[in-house]
């Protein structure tokens, strides 16, 4: 059983993630957090095997979250998968997001699971 933290502020997306993982409950236990600041705290409280990360969020965006994770000595090694509507070019503008695993929305359940499988 792998623990996955999903950082996503869009309520509809949160619903969709829940449904997408509905059938994988024996494989993955997911926790969804809409506020990236809270999500960062959660990482300290619980060991996660993977973080799914949206980028454009308020008040803390995914870029800052990622930077915080990578700069934190305890959490820097947690695998992070960025899932955003931004394309590669849009991502490249964000300097702190280098060498990141990335999927562009929309993403199919198969795609997502395959990627998660390779990372977690």
């Amino acid at each position, binding site marked *: 059983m792998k623990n996955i933290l999903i950082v996503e*502020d*869009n309520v*509809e*997306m949160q*619903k*969709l993630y829940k*449904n*997408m993982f*509905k*059938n994988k409950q024996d494989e993955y236990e997911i926790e969804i957090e809409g506020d990236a600041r809270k999500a960062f705290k959660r990482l300290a409280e619980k060991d996660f095997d993977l973080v799914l990360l949206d980028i*454009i*969020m*308020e008040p803390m*965006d995914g870029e800052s979250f990622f930077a915080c994770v990578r700069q934190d000595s305890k959490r820097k090694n947690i695998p992070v998968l960025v899932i955003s*509507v*931004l394309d590669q*070019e*849009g991502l490249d*503008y964000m300097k702190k997001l280098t060498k990141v695993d990335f999927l562009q*929305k*929309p*993403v*199919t*359940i198969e795609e997502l699971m395959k990627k998660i499988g390779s990372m977690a």
Partner: protein
Amino acid sequence: MAKTLHILIVEDSEDDALLIVRALEKDGYEIAFKRVETEEEMRAALDEKKWDIILADYKLPAFSGMEALKVAGGRDKQTPFILVSGTVGESAAVECIKAGANNYIIKGSLMLLGLAVQRAIDETKTRKENIARGKALMDSVNAWDTTFNSMNDAVCLVDKNRAIKICNYIMAQMFGRSQEDLIGENCCNLIHGKAMPVKECPVTRALETRKREIEELHLGDKWVSVTADPVFDSNNEITSFVHIVRDITDSKTMEASLKISEMKYRRLFETARESIIIIDLATKKILDANPFVEKLLEYDPGKIIGKEIFELSPIKEIFETKIAFKEIQEKGFIQHRHISLQTKRGERIYVEFIGKVYKVGDRDVVQLNIRDITAYKKAEEALLQSEIRFKELFENMMNAAAVYGAVDDGQDFIFREFNKAAEGIEKAKKGELIGKRVTECFPGVKEFGLLDVLQRVWKTGRPEKFPAKEYKDNRISGWRENKVYKMPSGEIVAIYEDLTEEKLTQNLIKEKGEKLEQALDISGAGIWEWDLAEGVVKTDNRFSRMLGYGNKKMKINIGEWEKVHYPGVWDERKKEAQEYIDGGKRLYESEHEVKKKNGGSIWIYTRGKISERGAKDEPLKFVGIALDVTKRKRAEGALAERQRLIDQVGEIAKIGGWEMDLEKGGKATWTKGIYKIVEVNVGEPVPGADEHVDWYLPEYRQMIKEKMQKLIKTRQPMQFEAMLKTKKGTLKWCQAIGEAVERDGKVVKLRGTFQDITERKRAMDALKESEQRFKTAVLDSPHPILIHAEGGEVIQISRSWTDIAGYTEQDIPTLADWTEKAYGKKKASVMKDIKKLYTIKKRKYEGEHTIRTKDGRMLVWEFSSAPLGSMPDGRRLVISIANDVTKRKGTEEALRESEERFRTTFERAADMLFLHDQKGNIIQVNNNACKNLGYTRKELGNMKVQDIEVGFSRKELEPLWRRIIDKSQIARGVMKRKDGTTFPVEVNVGGFDYRGKKLLLAVSRDITERERLEYAKVHLMRDVTHGLKTPIAISQMALYVCNEGLKRGDVNEVNEAHAIVANNLKLLRKDIDNILTSTTVDMRKGEKVSSKKCSSLKGIAKNMTMDIKGALEKKRNIEVKIKIAPDANKVAVAPRDIKILLNCLIDNAAKFTEKGAISIISRPKKGHVELEVKDTGCGISKKHLGRIFEKFYKRHPAVEGTGLGLSICKDIAEMYNGEIEVKSEGVGKGTTVLVRLPKG
């Protein structure tokens, strides 16, 4: 008036001329004059001589006063001119004065002439002086102007408070500032960074002394010479100082090392314990001599210099000196040559000298190290003479003498010498005895007892007397009395007498008194009889003869006897006699000196006895014989003298004699001198040859052995110098000289002298070293150096002189050659300057000179010269040191150019430029920087980069600057203007070498515009695409989930997905509507619309809000209030546009409001309608308020929508000449949008 006044009188009347002369003579002038009548005469007179004054008649038959004035040339001709006439009118006189005459005098008032003449002469003189002074002044002003700025020294004029009044270019350059900039600066502060003058400040001193003061100061790592020259005003008050600062570091260093070398050399030269003379090899003249020489030869200091070496030799020996000198010329050196010199008073002095040739400049000189060996020589000479005397004496003395050499370790002796007297006594020929053993020739010698004495004397060296005894062998017998000495050579001398006859005589006296006379005659003895009772001494013929009385018997009163023959010593003689009389001795015996009657003295040997006694046994008569032993005595004296001399010579010369007996396995004997040199106690055993060689340091041993072997083989005298270590461990340089002694064609002995030459060696080595050092300092100096003597002779040039300029010593034997070649046309003025150098007392800086090298290149050399004492001949020496500054000059030029280029570029650059040091201190900025930051140049000059660059912290900046010293780097920063606003910059910082300092040049560019564009680009893409793509992406993903749900038959999941899709499609549609509206409005922008159709706000607002009102209130608990004033209902805006406007505003209000109310209010305002849409939502922060009307601008990309709403509203309002304004009290305090629209 004693001086004769020379007057030229232009006058036709002789009488008038005489009148004039008389008038002047009356005034006390002594007059010499010439009268001329015509122009030709006058010109001739002017050419002939210089006149003190010209007096001219106004009217002449063939000439006029005015014409004469023209001929004289007016005032400018410098000869005073006075018009003298009986007829001259007022106007003519004025005309004359105007034309240049000094004065005019009417013949009727000639008594005024004297005064007029004096005044005219004075006037002319003053005028002449003024002209000269004026010209000089002009010249000096011009010279000042041209030289001031081209001077190589930093020069400034400071006032009494040391504030700079003027300064030259170099001065400004020294401090990296402009000339104008330095004016008013306090020079203490500028140079030393102190408010108070430093204690050595020459200005302080000059204020007191009121004359030029010079000080050499250490500034940082440089030496500068600072001059302060007071400038006086007409009241003789000091008004200011000319202050000159000159960098003398190079020369100072050079000078110091030269001084040391020269001082060392000089000191050695002056204090050497040996005499040193330096002679020019070519001219044979003495160039230098140290005080030792002067003392030795009794010359006054300096007086010996310039003499020829031969002048110092006694006439007899000039030839010898010349030979020695020739040898030096040929071989380059000469060693241990003995010559004699003569003191100034003519006394002869023996010297030994060592000479060596070396080069000084282009000439060869000989250095002679001279040792005074007079004492030694004199002793030697005396010895030689005494030797001759001794030989003569030895041969001819009446006493017998034999010289023995010890053999068998002193057990036996062989005859070396045997004199005539001895031959007679022993009835043997010298030739038969020499080389034979004494025991062989005189077999009875042992029994006789003499052998023992000989052995003892040989061993102890102490002389012994062997009293009379009878010798007997088969051949000969007789009474002998011996005195035995040991000579310094080790030989034993026995001087003896045959006393046989005396013995016989004694017997005869006893036996036959009458035969006495005869016997005495034979023995040669004189007889004396002292009649004690009578008080007279009687002498026989022989004794009288001895005492100088002639061949007759004498009877001398005892008083006179004492006075004539024993003056001062009679008591001694009497004492001797008394001892005998008192009965102590059997026989009276004495050897003493007796004065002869007419001067001179003899030594006598005398014996006697009491011949008659009185009744009480008191002595009455005392009789004796006397023998003349003068010759023997003198021989003895000569021997003693010889010994003393040898010792003395050895002492003086630190010399000793040695002998090595090859027949005895190299057994050696030494004189005292050697013991002393090798520090061995006299009398200790002398080591054999091999052992002795081991005393020398190992490197010399082989050489010494070879020399000795060669000596034995070739019999050529040997000589060597080597270092030995004495038993006490002292290292000494010694010189040994040896020769072979042959006998029968075989070398049997080596003998010679041994001398301690340590001091000489040491002095020579030290001298050589000092000389070398001095030469090296000059020759190998990196600076071109030329040493020259008064008169222009080039004494020495350094190698670098040749290396740089190409001239060798042969090329420039004199300064005339040098200036000719190097300066060409300018040589005369340069030579003039050089001539002045011989009087300088201190180092003088001569400035830069352009010189021509041998191969025609032009170089710039900076010269300075210093006095270097005098040549032995009194010519002063100057050392001129050059510094090739050609490269520096070129570099300076290039630097100036590049500086110029840099400055222009710097100022004109479109970017902001900052030149600053590594601490951030701003050194220079350009105009653009000032303009952009709003500071003045001066303000920025006092600031640090950190004050204006706020994008980086101080901690970040300084390491950054250190890193980029050699490679430029681009960084983004933020700069702060004077008014506190900031702007983004892109800074290109690079290391920059500026006047030897590592500086940084920051090229900054305001990138506000660029950043804005970039921002727009990035955010447009990010925000807009995000806004549009998100609903699509969510919808799509919802569909994937929906599919899953369908597959699994999960209705909830399907419904949820449907709702998501529906909602997102709605959002998407709104966004697309917004974009389309914006595009449409955008296309209409610029066209000013005045709508014919009016809209009713009330109706439209109501209709619109109806759609959302219910939903909003229900869902979010938001109340919608509409309050349209009746006189503010109609607006002249197309309803379509009002709809869009209101829609956007309400939509926004709804989007950002969670609870409370949204009010739509309209009111009339200044002929407009003011429409207000107010909410109680999250408000807008100040940061966003300014940009809220920008297209696509959103508070945050995560915010829903396109960010086009307000921009659309603005476009619409402006289209109708309306205005729009957004107000917010801040975050959480709601938002109010005010739109003013034209009234309908």
